[in-house]
């Protein structure tokens, strides 16, 4: 652990006043001035002893955090262990040290340091800092700075604790306007359908022998008329609607049509992020609507996903979207030959590529994000 020292303005003023007092005490034969000078000098020594004792046996660990989301604050948790047997800890701030490079957390947002008022000797305490990301992606933490100016604020002592870590920031999700999903999903063969499994549906699936406990309403009385045994009508369960979202990022950023100007690259990148946001919003809306959904990302090295539903499936797809590296070279995707019964929504960044059109697919452009979202 490395230690750093920082003298704040209050501390510098204190030192200056102490020196002046020393000069005055030497000039004036007044022992109370000498006492005052000695007391102020002793304050410096005591401050060093107390703060040194506090931070000498300090252990800080950053706990693993859940993925965050763009625009939503996420908690960074730390476990602070005071290994000292006698010294308590007071007024300790934990902040993340900036990381050089594009993948540093400081490139994604701001962090409010965690603050600990007190931890007793041999106590472990947990505190939280707040990270507000404004970009999606995977970001690194390298080291933490544990700082305290206790007891008198004369000197700020900083202990650098090295601990590598990573946080995944998921793309932002925006709420779609009502009816948008219904408009997208029933097109073609992705709507509600009958499954081949028995369940509490209304469609006829078949007849089977009666089992005690079957509802009398499900007994096939007409069939009974011709037979001596009872039979029960089996209904099929409803299969949820299905939606496959294809995010087309094949076209490199430089080839996007965003108009000319010095900020064309910035606008192009923003458009790509809007496409990702639209895809994430669609998937989140599909999850809320009970759909089965899947995601394909053309241009990125990510696998084709199966149509599923549920929290973990959504998280996986969000992680895929978060991990898309728009600076990497675009990867040519092999188009799947297998047909599936699902609505297909293709999200394009700036324009539709008709060469990739499939029958029954619906194309959306990222520029329509604001229109589609509430």
């Amino acid at each position, binding site marked *: 652990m490395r230690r750093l020292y920082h003298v704040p303005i209050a501390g510098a003023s204190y030192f200056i006043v102490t020196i002046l*007092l020393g000069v*005055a*005490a*030497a*000039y*004036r*034969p*007044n*022992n*109370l*001035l*000498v*006492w*005052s*000078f*000695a*007391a102020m*000098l*002793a*304050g410096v*020594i*005591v401050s060093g*002893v*107390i703060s040194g004792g506090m931070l000498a046996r300090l252990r800080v660990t950053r706990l693993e955090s859940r993925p965050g989301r763009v625009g939503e*604050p996420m908690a960074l948790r730390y*476990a602070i*262990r005071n290994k000292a*047997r006698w*010294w*308590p800890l*007071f*007024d300790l*701030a934990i902040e993340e040290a900036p990381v050089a490079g594009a993948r540093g957390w400081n490139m994604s947002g*701001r*962090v*409010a*340091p*965690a*603050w*600990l*008022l*007190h*931890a*007793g*000797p*041999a*106590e*472990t*305490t*947990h*505190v*939280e800092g*707040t*990270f*507000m990301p404004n970009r999606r992606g995977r970001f690194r933490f390298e080291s933490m700075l544990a700082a305290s*100016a*206790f*007891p*008198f*604020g004369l000197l700020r002592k900083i202990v650098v604790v090295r601990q590598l870590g990573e946080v995944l920031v998921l793309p932002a999700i925006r709420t779609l306007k009502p009816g948008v999903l219904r408009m997208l999903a029933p097109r073609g063969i992705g709507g509600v359908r009958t499954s081949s499994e028995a369940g509490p549906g209304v469609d006829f699936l078949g007849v089977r022998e009666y089992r005690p406990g079957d509802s009398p309403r499900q007994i096939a009385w007409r069939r009974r008329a011709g037979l001596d045994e009872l039979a029960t009508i089996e209904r099929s369960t409803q299969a949820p609607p299905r939606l496959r979202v294809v995010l087309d990022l094949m076209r490199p950023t430089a080839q996007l049509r965003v108009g000319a100007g010095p900020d064309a690259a910035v606008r192009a990148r923003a458009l790509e992020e809007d496409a990702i946001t639209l895809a994430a919003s669609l998937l989140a809306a599909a999850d809320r609507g009970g759909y089965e959904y899947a995601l394909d990302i053309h241009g990125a090295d990510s696998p084709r996903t199966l149509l599923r539903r549920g929290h973990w499936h959504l998280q996986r797809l969000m992680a895929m979207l978060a991990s898309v590296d728009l600076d990497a070279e675009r990867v040519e995707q092999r188009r799947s030959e297998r047909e599936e019964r699902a609505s297909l929504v293709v999200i394009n960044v700036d324009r539709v590529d008709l060469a990739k059109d499939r029958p029954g697919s619906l194309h959306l452009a990222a520029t329509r994000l604001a229109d589609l979202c509430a």
Partner: protein
Amino acid sequence: MNPALRFPLFAFSTMLVAIVAFGVARQDVTLLLGAALPAAASWMVTEGPRRRGLPRWVTTLLVLAVLVWMLTQSPLQTDPVGLASTVGGFVLWTSVIKLYERKSTRDRRQLLGLSLVLMLSGCLATSHLIFGALLALYAILMVASLMLYRMERGGERAAEQHRAVAPGMPVPPPVFGGRAGRQLRRVVTTGLVVGLAVSLLLFVLFPRDIMSRLESWGGAERAAGFRSDIDLRSNSRIAYSRREVMRMRWIDPAGQAVSAVEPIHLRGAVLDRYDAGQARWVSTRDERISRPVPSGDDDAFEPLARPPLDLRQQTFTQEVELRHLLTDVVFSGWAPVAIAHPGIGTLVFDGGTLELRDPDWERGPRTWGYRVKVKPFITQDGLMALSGQPIRWNEPRFTVQGVAEEARRVLGQVSERAPDASRLRRDPEFRWNWARHSSGIFLRYLQGSGFRYTTDLSGLVLRRGEDPIDAFLRRGRSGHCELFASALCGMLQSVGVEARVVVGFVALEYDESARQYIVRENNAHAWVEVRTGEWIWSTVDPTPAATLSSLADAGRSWTDSLRWLYDGVDFMWRTRVVAFDANAQSSILRGTSDRFGEWLRGAVTGIGNSLETLSRQFESGGVGRIWAVSVVVTLIGAAATAILLSRRERRWRRLLRLEELPVRERRRVRRDARFFADALVLLESAGAAKPDWRPPLLHADTIRTVDRGAGDAFARLTEIYYGIRFGGDESSRSAQSEATALLRRLEAGLRRAAPL
């Protein structure tokens, strides 16, 4: 409870103590009450049920108004003390105003800074004991306030940063562990103790050579309450203070401590010439009849007379213990014949005036006691021996015309007139008779009803060019002992009588229980000595004894019974703190180094003797060497074992978290549940250490994924451990055996499994 919540109260208390201390330093009761009471009341206003406070613009206006008022009343001074006093006054009223403001944490920090300025101003103004006690209290409160401020400010800053990053989100509450208040008190106490020790060390070691070379600030004499001259234009001598300046035992020739029939005049300085231009009495010392009086290391008396006088007859012993006096004068009654002054150094004795002085009192070691042999009824031969040579008659001249006229007028009232100077010069007998006669006339005149003794001289306003003695004799006719003595001496000198003013103390108050006189500051006194013989100077005190007694009794109150306590503490404060100087510093350091050197020498000698004894034990050839080696090996082994055991003990404590338990419980768990610590150690060495945050049973599940047997064994060990630690189960032999077997299973399982 969040200890930082107490910060407002501590900041307020610190400020209040600083205000009171400043008022005490200025010794101004009006200022003290006028500032302290509103300051104390501000707490109810700003922190009471209604929590009101002045808006900032109002306080700013008030502060500006105070500034303007102070500048108009007391213009800026160049003297550092005066400047500090002015600044202190401004800061005082500013602080009182700011106490009524609605305060944030930063405002309270400002108040702490202002309080520091007040205390520093007070340090420059006084060195009184009560101020010192308030300074100590202030230091304690300031240390606590600063620590609380740090915590309060830390929380505020964290909240501000949180709101900047995530506006609209609730700010996380401060996190603090158990017993935060108690632990903060512990830190404050440690800080104060360490700070006191360090500041004491720095205070003792602070170089004082710089200060001793500079001109004294008058601190020494002011601390003494005694001046060896009389300045009639100032009344700095007159003091009501009942502070002790010395204690004196008066021992009769039989060796018994007794009280004298009359008040004892302790002679300090003899002043024989009046400087009319400055209205001062000064001394014209004849250095030819001064001689040194050496000091020895023992307590023996050094004779002042040559040849030495017989000290067995008619000789009293005066034992003096100084309490606050810091002066070069050695006080003694009439007439000193021998002195014992161990450690003082060489004194100077004036045979003509019988004064004793310590010329090196500022540079040499400080002393607080001496003994003097005194012969109140000394003979002419004795005085001759003390003087060493004849004292020539100096024709006295008193240049204040008004005093001479008044003297002649008084003589005329009794049908007398001043004789010719030539006759006085020619006829010594006539001279001495005239001295006795005229001193009686003037004494009766001054002690008559026309004169009044008072220490309040506000009624006597001097006219331009008027002499104070003249004003006293012809207009005021009321004054203190200096004026009475000056008038008597002046009148006598103007009619050709050799007279001199003596300043010192008069011992009146006798403590029967301690059998000693207590001399206080208000016992300072001036009287006259008249030469009434070749070798004889008679004491003539124009202040009646009854007046002296009533003055001594003035100011006596019920607090006198407690003064012994206060005076004792005040004495220590004065001698150990206020008067601490380079001499005291060097004597402490010398004493410390002497004692340390003695101890070190003793230790080295002791070690040498022990080694010699030890080597004699081993001098028996090869057997001795083997014996020595085995002893050394045993010692090393014992030390290593102790270290290993200690490390293991610490490890167990850490693993089992024994610090959280009371001492008794800690012993029980350590004794009965040691197997669980062994299990954790096994896991650590196998690379499967249990993280602190993970419960043991959950960790057992993790181990099961690589080796079922090891996981089951660890789970069972955990259950047994829980029973002992939390269930209060006694550890039976069967449980211990089971634990041992489980440990073996765990070890075997971990050996089988791959590292987790």
